[in-house]
């Protein structure tokens, strides 16, 4: 275990508008994998602690983009993932969505793609689109 490195990182928590600046002491193995989070300071609520752990292991973000609409009064439908998905999957999600087309009418919350990239998270409509 002598090859493990302990480092101190600083980043902002983005859970709420307070944007607390977190200071995190983390121990990593030689290949960069997180072995242990030693301490999280700077957070003003428990969500900051949870955020720091997640951020170091698998950063999660809500993914948003647009999908082409046919026969709607708008050319594009804004979409989002219902929950955050791994940041690492966002580029792959874009590739999947590029060629997709949905038909109007659409209501906010309608499922556009089920279980996006096997995340168990749905891609849903962000807005109503009426027929042209």
């Amino acid at each position, binding site marked *: 275990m002598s090859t493990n490195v302990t480092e101190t990182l600083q*980043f*902002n928590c*983005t859970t*709420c*508008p307070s*944007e607390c*600046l977190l200071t995190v002491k983390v121990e990593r193995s030689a290949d960069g994998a997180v072995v242990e989070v030693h301490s999280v300071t700077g957070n003003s609520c428990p969500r900051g602690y949870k955020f720091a752990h997640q951020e170091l292991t698998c*950063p999660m*973000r*809500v993914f*948003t*983009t*647009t999908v*082409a609409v046919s026969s709607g*009064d*708008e*050319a*594009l439908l*804004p*979409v*989002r993932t219902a929950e955050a998905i791994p*940041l690492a999957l*966002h*580029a792959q999600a*874009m590739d999947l969505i590029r060629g997709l087309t949905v038909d109007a009418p659409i209501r*906010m919350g309608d499922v556009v793609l089920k279980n996006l990239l096997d995340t168990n998270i749905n891609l849903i409509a*962000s*807005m*109503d689109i009426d027929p042209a």
Partner: protein
Amino acid sequence: MAEFKSSVIDTDAVEAVPTQAFDVVVIGGGPAGMAAALAAHKADARVAIVEREQHLGGILRQCIHPGFGLSHFKQELTGPEYAQRFIDQVHATDIALFLDSMVIGIDSGESTEDAAVHSVTLMSPTGMLQLTGRAVVLAMGCRERTRSEIKIPGSRPAGVFTAGLAQRYINIENLKPGSRAVILGSGDIGLIMARRCTLEGISVEGVYELMPYANGLRRNVKNCLDDFGIPLHLSTTVTRVIGHDRVEAVEVSQVDEHLAPIPGTERVVPCDTLLLSVGLIPENELSVAAGVELDPRTRGAVVDQSLQTGVPGIFACGNVLHVHDLADNVTTESERAGAAAAAYALGCGAGADADAAGPGCELTVSPAGIAGYALPGRITTVGLTKLNFRVRRPVDTARVRILAGDKELFAGKVRPFKPSVMESFPLPAKVIQRALDLGVSEIVLSVDPVEEA
């Protein structure tokens, strides 16, 4: 030279235009207008919203990213979702909607004694129309500062877009504005567009920022730049646009502490697109034409604690009043304006105020120290007053102080301040009363950096 006047409103002709009467006419159907209209409707006013687009929602329709609603709805929504929730609420009421309609003038009538009835003249593909109301709420939002306003020299090819225009092309029009972009300005729209471009296959060469710090929210620097490895170059600006027909490159230079480009630091960055996120300006041409006085610092109306402008019965809220950081704060402010407008309209008299608590007074509020502005600029009631301000530069340790003459009436706790955040500060009635007792006509909101102990 009367022949130079544009948008001439011929009073006789206006009288021939069909008229509809309301209590409160809200100009703008974005987040500010919808929140104001809903609040006015809740107070039993007859309300109309005039919106120039064919849909309600305003600029939120193209802000497809998350980050909205954290304080208002206690959950993270995208811009369109945030808008849709209000659109649904508006549709559930009998608020009259005038879409695809452009307001060409507000006429406040002759009367100055009583509450005048304001006439809002609008135009749409179905013709001209006049809406009357005792109260008008200005909620027209803002526009983006342009290349010309920040005087970037060089040629004038295609490919220079304000960030919002590029956002419209990408998120609304389904069109790719270029392949290789440089972004000037680290305001929130610039940061959001850096991520958006990257995801859509437009490579972002870098974000350049004139100031020595990022102008946007920390969450956006992290989620939009750091997540994608997009470099942020501080104290650097675009000093020349290169390319005759389409942008071929931009020249960037470092700037000194006076923000002047440092000769010898020029670097040419090849790109086909330059996005500008260099500030927002409240759109008040209509307000000025209606006789509303503007604050040169905010470029929005001078208002009192109920968000009423200098013209009785005309209220203002949202980004047309001052540029906000979060849509949630626009909503909160606009609900106040809408409620105050309804109270004014239904109370039918001057001074009828939503939070008409205390006795009247006349105080002006001015910013000092590193506070860039203070809002409201006037206080006419002794009552709890919400003050808003922004600092001009980031500081780690500073405090808010309320001053009257050479007396300090209040001092806040020492804490950090960032220009990206619109600060809110509750001014207690007793502080206002103390200022009045001192016989002053002005109180000062000062944000002063302090040395750390």
